[in-house]
């Protein structure tokens, strides 16, 4: 990866007793929220519609000013900063995408870098780099937003937010407007991207499965943004704090847990010397392996290093181990 993309690593965000009371409203929209968002992590805010997710997020880039409380980024109180200056250091992806329809894709992405005084050639190189990063062909730079599909526009929105290499990203239901298949694809691309860029990301969704997939940590919110539970996906699945959180997990909690566990993190048994066993690649999840077992009617599968029949066999996975994993024993962190 070129250096500019991974240039500025994430910074820690800290909210302390943050409250937002909209004028003329009896109840605060956000009440006394305190949370630490560790540098370089993806923290997902999940909760029902109207619980205050967007309000909480927009207070971080000061599109909404908190009524009380403090927010710091990298130790600096954001209220002491010039708001416009402050926002240039925060990538912001809004749910409605909000591309500038009268500007070409290259100018949508390059607008902020240009305003920051980057040279023409540097901006052009940055645009090319980001288009590649989000998986769009280079010649899309010359297109206008209306000439792109919804999913493609969404990727441009992410590229635009990354343009000036901000240490912090705020993403409000960034994949909300897409069909399940495109959404899954964008999520995977985004996770790959984040492994490279290591930004601090606040990600809003009301889809708990998306939260499980995307988050290093998840904050399950009640109305007024009150935190019901704030922990890793594994910990929330293993021990939901109360019925409210459990209701978010919904049915199939055990399967969801297995979907978080990659085969590479599971202790494998030596490969048996019998032929004809189903094979699965080590990047897959334990849930995928279980699915394969059920589909093939086999209680053991071979785990391989790569796709293909001649790929190296790393070991085998037994149904027993899967059941142990569900109970939280087989993990090998």
């Amino acid at each position, binding site marked *: 990866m070129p250096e500019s993309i991974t240039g500025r690593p994430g910074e820690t965000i800290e909210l302390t007793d943050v409250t937002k009371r909209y004028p003329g409203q009896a109840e605060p929209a956000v009440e006394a929220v305190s949370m630490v968002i560790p540098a370089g992590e993806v923290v997902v805010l999940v909760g029902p519609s109207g619980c205050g997710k967007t309000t909480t997020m927009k207070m971080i*880039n000061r*599109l909404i000013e908190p009524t009380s409380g403090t927010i710091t980024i990298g130790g600096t109180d954001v209220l002491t900063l010039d*708001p*416009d*200056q*402050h*926002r*240039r250091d*925060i990538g*912001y992806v*809004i749910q*409605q*995408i*909000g*591309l*500038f*329809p*009268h*500007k*070409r894709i290259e100018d949508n992405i390059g*607008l*902020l870098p240009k*305003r920051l005084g980057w040279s023409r050639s540097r901006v052009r190189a940055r645009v090319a780099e980001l288009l590649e990063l989000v998986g769009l062909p280079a010649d899309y730079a010359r297109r*206008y*937003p*209306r000439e792109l599909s919804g999913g493609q526009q969404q990727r441009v*929105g992410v590229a*635009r*937010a990354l343009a*000036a290499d901000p240490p912090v990203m705020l993403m409000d239901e960034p994949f909300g407007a897409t069909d399940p298949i495109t959404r899954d694809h964008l999520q995977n691309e985004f996770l790959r991207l984040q492994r490279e860029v290591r930004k601090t990301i606040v990600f809003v969704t009301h889809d708990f499965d998306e939260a499980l997939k995307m988050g290093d940590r998840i904050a399950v919110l009640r109305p007024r943004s009150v935190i019901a539970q704030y922990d890793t996906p594994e910990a929330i699945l293993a021990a939901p704090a109360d019925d409210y959180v459990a209701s978010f997990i919904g049915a199939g909690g055990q399967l969801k847990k297995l979907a978080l566990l990659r085969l590479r993190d599971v202790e494998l048994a030596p490969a048996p010397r019998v032929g004809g066993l189903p094979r699965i690649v080590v990047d897959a999840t334990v849930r995928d392996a279980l699915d394969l077992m059920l589909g093939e009617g086999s209680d053991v599968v071979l785990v391989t290093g790569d796709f293909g029949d001649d790929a190296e066999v790393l070991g085998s996975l037994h149904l027993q181990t899967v059941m142990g994993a569900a109970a939280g024993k087989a993990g090998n962190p």
Partner: protein
Amino acid sequence: MTFAEYVRENWITIVNDTILHFDVTLGAVAIAVVIGVGLGMLTYRHSTLAALATTTTGAFLTIPSVALLGVLIAPFGLGVLPVLVALVVYALLPITRNTIVGLQEVDPAVVEAGRGMGLSRTRVLWDLRLPLAWPVIFAGVRVSTQIIIGIAAIGAWVQGPGLGNQIFNGLGRFGGANSLNQVLTGTLGIVVLALLFDLALAGVARLTTSRGLRA
């Protein structure tokens, strides 16, 4: 003398009147764009101010042109100046109103994205709102032009320039030689000029609107 003969014999005067008519209309529209768009930009964010701007400029349009021109003689005398001022006054409503509506109706998501990346309010106005509202604003410019190109003819009453002179001369000695030809020349000239003007403005609209906004 037939109409064709009249035109052939007097074409220098007619062309001259047409050019002057065009000039005073263009000048008035240009000034009205500066004032109207400016007024729109200053008021679109405050609903009461915006309403005030549209009702005021709307009220202007109801003043009878003869009355307005008569009143303007006192400060501006006779000739082109009172005509220009009157035309600007009449051109304001469509431009001002369309500017306000255009600026207000810009997709809020676009504005939020702009503010979110750290663009100031002023930058959002100039870089995002104005170019996005431009097709709407320009539609107002075209309506204004059509309105005042006809009104400009009345300007001859205060010795203003343009095709109105043909009409007023003809009407002044109606029944006399060529009086009908004069009225006809002035009227048709204005209709043709209005058509060509609008065609030209349609071209300008195309050239000044981003390709990303065209359907």
